[in-house]
Structure formats: structure tokens, C-alpha cells
């Protein structure tokens, strides 16, 4: 399924953002933190939930100090390496949510940590823009990236564009890192989520972002 993240219009009132994005024709919306809550908000279609999303607030805490996950979201970011949860979250009892591949400063932010996660068979949300940051930072090898592309437990794919230095969530272009692989994943049935910022894009440009995946949607 093809999803648009609510964070495409991060900062906007929740219901407005959802309505604008839903009008672009995705299969569903990924509910992400960072929108102004709308009283009585009800999503207009199928959803996945991500990280600290909350209907009533901009965000909520995701990791407890002991490493327990505090939210019931489908997928979450691992903790920052400076958080006490960083050394414990993989060891707590019970099932883990889908963990997103990150970039340096976060757990799962290096190739070595991704190798460890794959060795354990963890379910992963592969954010290709984060992996581009890892590659540019020199902490991810092509071998690990290749292994990740064939990994059996990829539960989501997140796509946006950046310059290799900051997680800027720029709109996609045809040559965006990982885009072709993400399209393959979509064709194979993996949920793909576009997370680019749409705020400054006109209606045509927004539709063009979605059209990049038209031929890959079932």
C-alpha cells in the first residue's frame, strides 16, 4: 500500500493536513507526530501509526528510561544514543514494534547496528533517506546496504530526499537515493510511506510526488 505521512504537512492542524493529503489519493495515511491536534479528529481512510503520534497532542514520549516502549504505534524510531533507553530497549521482555533505520546519534544509526538488528531478525522500517545519511557519514557499507535490501523482515519503507548531511525531508526527485528500490518494495506489497515536506509545493507538484509510484501500486 502507498501511504503519505501526516508529517508531509507537519505543523498544520491535524484534520486539515489529513484532508489535503487524502485528496491526493494515497491508499492510506501514516499518522505521525507534530500536527496541531484537531478536536474529534478522525482519519479519512486507512492508517498506520508512527512513533509518538497522539490524537490529542503534538507528540508523546516513546521510550521509558528502562527501555520499554510506551506507545502502541506500528513503527517507532529507536532512542537517541544519549538516552538511557538506548542501551536497554533491545533487551526488554515482550515484542518490539517495528524499528526504523536511523542515522548517527540514534540507535540503529550505523551499519554495524543494522547488521546486529538483522542478525536478531527484528522487524525494520527502512528509511532510505536515513540510510543515505549513514552512507554519506561513512558508517554504512555497500555490503550492509545490499544485505538490508534483501532482508526478509522489512515491514515498512519510508522515503524522502536529503543532501546527505541533514534529514531535510525534501520532496522526491527521480534520482533520489533508494527510490527505485522503494518502488520495488511497493510492487512486492511492502507498505511504502512518502515523508517529504509538501508545504511549499503546489497542487501539481504534490500530485507529481505521488505519481512517482503510480505504476507500482497494485
Amino acid at each position, binding site marked *: 500500500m502507498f501511504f503519505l*505521512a501526516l*508529517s508531509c504537512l*507537519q*505543523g*498544520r*492542524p491535524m*484534520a*486539515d493536513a489529513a484532508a489535503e493529503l487524502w485528496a491526493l489519493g494515497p491508499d492510506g495515511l501514516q499518522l*505521525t*507526530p*507534530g500536527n*496541531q*491536534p484537531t478536536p474529534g479528529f478522525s482519519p479519512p481512510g486507512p492508517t498506520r501509526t508512527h*512513533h*509518538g503520534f*497522539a490524537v*490529542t*497532542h*503534538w*507528540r*508523546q*514520549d*516513546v521510550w521509558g528510561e528502562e527501555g520499554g516502549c510506551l506507545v502502541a504505534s506500528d513503527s517507532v*524510531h529507536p532512542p537517541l544514543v544519549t538516552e538511557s533507553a538506548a542501551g536497554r530497549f533491545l533487551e526488554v521482555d515482550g515484542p518490539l514494534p517495528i524499528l526504523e533505520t536511523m542515522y548517527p546519534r540514534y540507535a540503529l544509526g550505523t551499519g554495524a547496528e543494522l547488521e546486529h538488528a538483522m542478525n536478531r531478525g527484528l522487524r525494520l522500517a527502512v528509511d532510505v533517506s536515513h540510510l543515505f545519511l549513514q552512507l554519506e557519514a561513512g558508517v554504512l557499507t555497500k555490503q550492509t546496504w545490499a544485505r538490508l535490501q534483501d532482508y526478509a523482515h522489512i515491514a515498512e519503507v519510508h522515503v524522502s*530526499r536529503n543532501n546527505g548531511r*541533514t*534529514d*531535510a*525531508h*525534501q*520532496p522526491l*526527485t527521480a534520482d533520489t537515493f533508494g527510490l527505485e528500490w522503494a518502488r520495488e518494495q511497493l510492487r512486492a506489497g511492502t507498505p511504502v510511506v512518502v*515523508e*517529504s*515536506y*509538501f*508545504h*511549499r*509545493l503546489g497542487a501539481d*507538484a504534490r500530485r507529481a510526488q505521488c505519481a512517482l509510484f503510480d505504476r507500482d501500486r497494485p
Partner: protein
Amino acid sequence: MSDQDDQFDLAAVRALALERFKADAAGYFAANPDMHSLVFAVSQYFSDEAYDAVHESVIAFPSRDPWWPHVCGDDDDGVGASDGSSCRNCGPYEATHRPPHGHLESNSDAVYAWSAFCSEHGGGEGEPELQDPVAIARRGADGGVELEWVARVVRPWLDTNEVVSRRDGRGWGGVPVKARPEPTRAPWAEAEQPLFEAVLAAPLDDGPRRVLVDHWLERADERGEFGALSFGSPATEALRARRDVLAARHGRAWLGPLQPFISVASAQFARGPFVSRAVVSFRSDAEQAEAAAVADWALLDAIHFFDARQSFNTHMRGLREVTGVFAHGLASLVECGLRPPLHAVGLVEPVTRGDWLAAPLGAVRRLLIDCEEPRRFQELPVFSTLEQLEVWFTTPTDEATGFVQPWSDERGLMAFDLFLPLMRPGASVSVGYALPNGAHAGVVTTVTVGGGVRVERRMFTSERAVKNAQSRLAALGAPRPASVEQSPPQPLPLPGPAAPAPPVPAVGVSSALRRWLEKRGWAKPRNDSGTRTECAGAAGCHFSKARIRL
């Protein structure tokens, strides 16, 4: 947080930030006699975890009127930008010569205070061209600091104390934060009701307004006190300050049933304690429909529609100026049969010739166009009767990336070629750029048909912005500028041959404009001093007063 209690008060946090900025400016000006203004700007950085830090920046300028944007110089040499401006990224390393920094905590109070003014760049951390100006501090004639409020509301839904209670449900650092309740307007007393209805019935008439103000004055009501100070400009600085304090204290309540549709930071009150100018936004179709039933719209002289969700209603009888208008907005004006006395209209997308003629726009003398492509407006049947045309190019963005692109003069010159032949003698065409937050700023070029050419750098150009800035700042406890009228264009500073050599920025006209002028025979070769002394041509342009350095 408010110092007075545990309730969060947006106005108090903003006032605190500006108070500190002003104190910093005083110290900076004392140590840097060549610098004459500081711009306080903000930018918001979003992350996909919804960390949305707002960063405060200060940029120093060698002139009294700063320009925008500041483009950083080399980070490593510590001498600032080539035009003489500098910030903490590119300015001197010595503490006394380095522009000051902001004081609010980036991840809490700064977010609450400034989010409503931060453009939706989707990541503005450390990128000066993505910052939004909030205030200007100028070196005062008496050695003090003059503060001007220039913020522009771009996300009105965040201009409320409620923003603090919707953050993460537990406050910051585990300390619950409660929003101070927003004040509301008390129901009209029995004697007030008919007087207020008389105000609404004749929005252009001061008479009913004065009657109601007198009614309040007789009862020692602060609405009467404000009203008495709001017809024209009060005589003394103290009275003006008192007027602005009252507006800041009660303005949100005075909005009454308009409060859901108007950002209080954008509101001005005049001719009584009645909102006269404001940014209008409807957050849903239902809210827009509800708004049409509110009779208080008659109070407004000028509105700016925040976005495409817009419509006129039959209550808006007093409108003289409306900006941010889409084609369907203009259509709603026709449909509702409203005939307001509009003299200024701002369009953000083209309307057809037929739609313009169908609308009651015959009295319009000032047209503002915010656009990327001015040719689409060329067919409007209005240019021959206009006194003033302003073409504001929206900040260009890259279609592929959505991010801000460098500005270019070429489109502006095309606008002169398009519109000057359509205008009558004495009318003027101005071309400038709108900042990402929609503010009209930057380098502005004005050509008057049969008159002259004027090139200027200015931060904000609208009278509304200036007046709003003054009243808001004064309300926040800042002193008023020595000069009431800050908005009139100033000629470019010209370094005279005998003058000492302060770091005057290179403010000559662009090479593109120079070529454009010379191509039309409007400019003679430069003289020895590097200035134009005369200029004549097809439109009789005259340069000597403009003091343009070519």
C-alpha cells in the same frame, strides 16, 4: 511561562524575549559604533519525531534600515558578509563585536512564542535565508534603542495560549503547563446593545462609534479610554503608549465572535475598541460557513485572507482594502452582492477580465499582485486607472525540491516592461519580493510614469505592518520609535567622497537593472563620483534625487 503564575501566557513570553533583545542591542550598539540596526529573526526546524525547535538569531547591519535576507559571509574569516551585515555564524569572534544571541529555550518557550511566525520551510536551522524577521532594534538618536515589531503571522492556529497544552500532555521537564484562558467579550449590557448595533449599521461613520465610546467613558470603562485615544494619533508619547497597552491587554476579548477567525497578533484596533485590520483564516469549511453569520465583520476596514479558504459575506460593508484574494474569493464578492468601498485589492492569482468587471472594483486605485508570473495579470482592465501597482514576486522555490531558490532581478524588469505602458502619467509601479512568510520586503524598485526611478532596500513596506508593529511593540512595553512614519521609502545611503568610510554596504542597483535602464536610454554614463546626476528617457526618469549608485 508567565512570571505571575503557573499559567502560560504567550504575550508575556514574547515580551520577555523582546525585552532581552533590546537590552542586548543597547550593549551591542555601545560597543559597535558602526552598526546601526539589529534584526531579531526566528526559524523552526522540524524533525520527523516532531521535535520542532525554534532558533532565535540576530543579524547586525551597518545601516539604520536593514535589508533582507542576510546572506552569510565566509564562516571562517569572522568578518561577516560582503555587504557589511553579520550574524553569529559569520561575524567577528570577539564577544563585544559579535551579534548577540536569543534567550528563549529553543525546545520550549521559543517554540510557543514564535511558531506562529515561522514559515513552513520544513527545516530552517542555521540557514539565514530561511529565517523570518520578528523585530528590528535601531540605534536611537538619544543613545537608546528603538524597537520595531515586524513579525508576520503565518500559522495563525498557533497564536494562542492553548498551544502549550497541546504539546505532549505532560509539560516540559515533567512539569504540567496550563494555558492561561483566552479572554472573551462579555455580553453587551442592555444600554450597549443598540449603540453597538448602530456602529455595525454604519461602519464608515465615526458618529455611532463616538457615541458608544462616550458611553463607556462616562462609566470609566477602559474601552472608552482606548476609544478616546483611537480616533487619530494621540498627542503625546505617553498617551500612545497607553493606547497600545490597552489594545494588548484587551484586544483578544475585543475581537468578540471574530476571535476564531482572526489571529490576535495580526489585529489592529482603531476608531474605538473595534478591530480594523486583521489576517483572516478559516480552519474548516464549517467554520467558514459559521463566520458568515457574524455581524462584527462590519467593523473591519482591511483584511488579508490567510489562504485559499476564503469568502466575503454581506456583513463586510466597511472594507476598503482586501489582500490575499483568490479568483474564487473575488467570485464570492460578486455572489453575495456586497458593495464595499474598496480602494486597494491584493490578488494572489489571476482573475479573468470578466470577473474583474463583474466585481464592484471600480474605485480601486491600488493593486497588489503576489505572483510568480505577472504576465497572467496583464489582461486586467484596471491599469489605466490605477495610481499604484505593486508586483511582489513570491519567493521562488525549486519545483523539484520545494526549497527556496536565489532571487533574480530579471522577472522584476519584465514586470516594468509589462505594466508601465499600461499606466497613466503619475502612476507608479513597484516591484519587490515577498519573503517566504509573505511579507513584502527586500530590494524594491519603483518607477513612476513620467516621474522617476527609485531603488530602495527596506524590510517591510506596508503601512499596516508598520502601524501594527508600533502598536504591538509599544503594548509590549517597548518605546515607540522617534519617527512615527518608518515606512516611507528611504533613498539608498550614498558614500560621499569626503565622508569617513564606515562599512557602507554595496547597495548599488543590480547590473540587470542598470542594463535595463540604459537599454531604454534612461541613464547617462556615470560621472566621476560614481553617481547619476541626471537621467532622461522615454518615461522622463530622473535619477539625481534617487542617489542611486551605479
